[in-house]
């Protein structure tokens, strides 16, 4: 082959490679936009079918056999109370476990086991938490099909998320901060409380928000413990007119939740109930995507403001 022809040949190959690269770049961009487009389609679809149902009446009415009169009052109250139970269990336990594993735990077989266990727990299907809750909380502990049992199931479910995000937040803090505290004679807990926790609040809060958003959208564990789909009453109030003025009766009350209510409406025939399902879905999407969006912003903010 003559040298010129060789050069031409190589030039042609280089151009072809460039063209292929350009095409792949375009393909990747289109697929990225398309995949994100699913999210937009999902939202628009729910809005188109359900937005007209969302009004004051919808938020303040109990479910009903007549679709047009039905509302999500018991569902959103149930979701709110569930989250109260879930948060008050998962946050302290998860943050404590995160601090322990990151700051205290000795490097040994037991710690390795706990770490593998947490990683694996994060991948256990949510419905299995429901089965555990059904057997342990509902029957063994005799909590019944109550807000307490549901909230505990969801707390177990999101515990790994809180642990992992706490650990990640602590891990980004350089060792010199700890060393400085120890050099001044602080105990490990004092270093954690006065220095490490304040620096990692942003990261931990991000994880907490993500875990709560996950818990709000979960329905399968609640279905397995037997959350009822038709609840036309509210749990007993937490504040009562006789001493000691607070009552915890509500945690033993049967309940429904937004995703359960939506599931119930999806599985009913008839366009009117499907409009209700879309409306409930829209509420769920706004809550969960809003929380996730807040978490993303918070994470970005927390990262930007700290310069070691």
């Amino acid at each position, binding site marked *: 082959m003559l040298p010129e022809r060789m050069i031409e040949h190589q030039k042609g190959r280089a151009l072809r490679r460039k063209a292929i690269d350009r095409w792949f770049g375009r393909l*990747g961009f289109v*697929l990225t936009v398309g995949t994100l487009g699913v999210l937009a389609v999902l939202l628009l679809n729910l809005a188109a079918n359900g937005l007209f149902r969302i009004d004051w009446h919808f938020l303040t009415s109990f479910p009903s056999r007549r679709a047009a009169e039905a509302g999500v009052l018991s569902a959103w109250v149930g979701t709110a109370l569930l989250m109260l139970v879930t948060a008050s269990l998962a946050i302290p336990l998860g943050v404590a476990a995160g601090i322990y594993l990151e700051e205290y735990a000795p490097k040994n077989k037991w710690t390795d086991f706990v770490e593998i266990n947490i990683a694996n727990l994060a991948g256990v*299907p*949510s419905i299995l938490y429901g089965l555990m809750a059904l*057997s342990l909380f509902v029957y063994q502990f005799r909590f019944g099909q109550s807000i307490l049992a549901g909230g505990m199931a969801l707390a177990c479910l999101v515990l790994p998320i809180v642990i992992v995000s706490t650990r990640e937040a602590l891990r980004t803090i350089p060792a010199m901060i700890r060393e400085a505290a120890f050099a001044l004679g602080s105990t490990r*807990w004092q270093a954690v409380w006065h220095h490490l926790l304040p620096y990692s609040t942003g990261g931990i809060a991000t994880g907490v928000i993500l875990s709560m958003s996950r818990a709000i959208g979960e329905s399968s564990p609640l279905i397995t413990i037997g959350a009822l789909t038709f609840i036309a009453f509210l749990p007993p109030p937490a504040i009562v007119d006789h001493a000691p003025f607070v009552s915890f009766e509500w945690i033993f009350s049967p309940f429904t939740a937004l995703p359960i209510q939506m599931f119930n409406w*999806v599985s009913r025939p008839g366009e009117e109930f499907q409009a209700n399902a879309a409306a409930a879905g829209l509420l769920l999407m706004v809550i969960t995507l809003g929380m996730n969006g807040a978490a993303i912003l918070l994470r970005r903010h927390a990262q930007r403001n700290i310069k070691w």
Partner: protein
Amino acid sequence: MPHPYESSRRLDKAVEWIMVWMLRFGGWASVLVTFGIVITLITESEPFFSKVPFRRLMTDKMWTPLFADPQYGMSALLAGTLVTTGVALLVAIPLGTILAIYLSEFAPVRLREFVKPMLELLSAVPTVVYGYFALLTLTPLLQKIYPDLPQFSMLSAGLIMGIMIIPYVTSLGEDSMRSVPMLLREGAFALGDGKLGVALRVVFPGAFSGLAAAYVLAISRAVGETMIVAIAAGLQPKLTFNPLDSAATVTAFIVQVSLGDLPHGSIGYQSIFAAGAVLFLMTLGFNLAGHALRRRFHRAA
């Protein structure tokens, strides 16, 4: 004379001791949850497995443990899980991998920083909403192309499930591709390869165990997914490998039984724990394999 700081030091030590035990308790809580799951699955499904001979689990063609003439063909349940997972992977693995390659090797940094958290939102959507979408939007759409498609189909549920697990593939895959050292890429560029060539011939093999971990964890997610299949794939167990058909998965069966009245210790109660035990073993296998692959990748990188 005692040191002036001694009493406060003693207090600090006491607080430290209390806090260590409280924190340690938090660490134990996660282990307790695992034990809780394992022990309840074993004890509650034990009556089922000791009553039903192993041979029938393998050879029966139908799964109807609640009927008067019960059939215990696990394969009827597993087929549903297998088909929906397969459809989901056909969506998520190619799409997720292409997106990972694009975001890691091609996309401008600012686009990547914008897209990554947006993609995560796809896995944050409540699954009951995905189920709604599959049943009431995607299925009617597919019925226009293929009019014989039943109202409940594994195809529709699987496709949506695939969308849901794309972020698992993309984000883990992209992370592992980006941690492939720049030097390797530069070497290949210096030899005259193009971007896609480098991505496929250098970065992809270099990141393979990370990508494999992403695939395996995505499989585990798809196997354990419940609400999408319960809403859109149907609740009747059926031994079929046709994605255009409707069939219940292991998870959907648990939902279907849980929706009814479920007295403690009844055969229905025992059967969902049996299904749960099988589900746990499957996902545990995938999860452990995924983490082993991931660890191997971190060691290599």
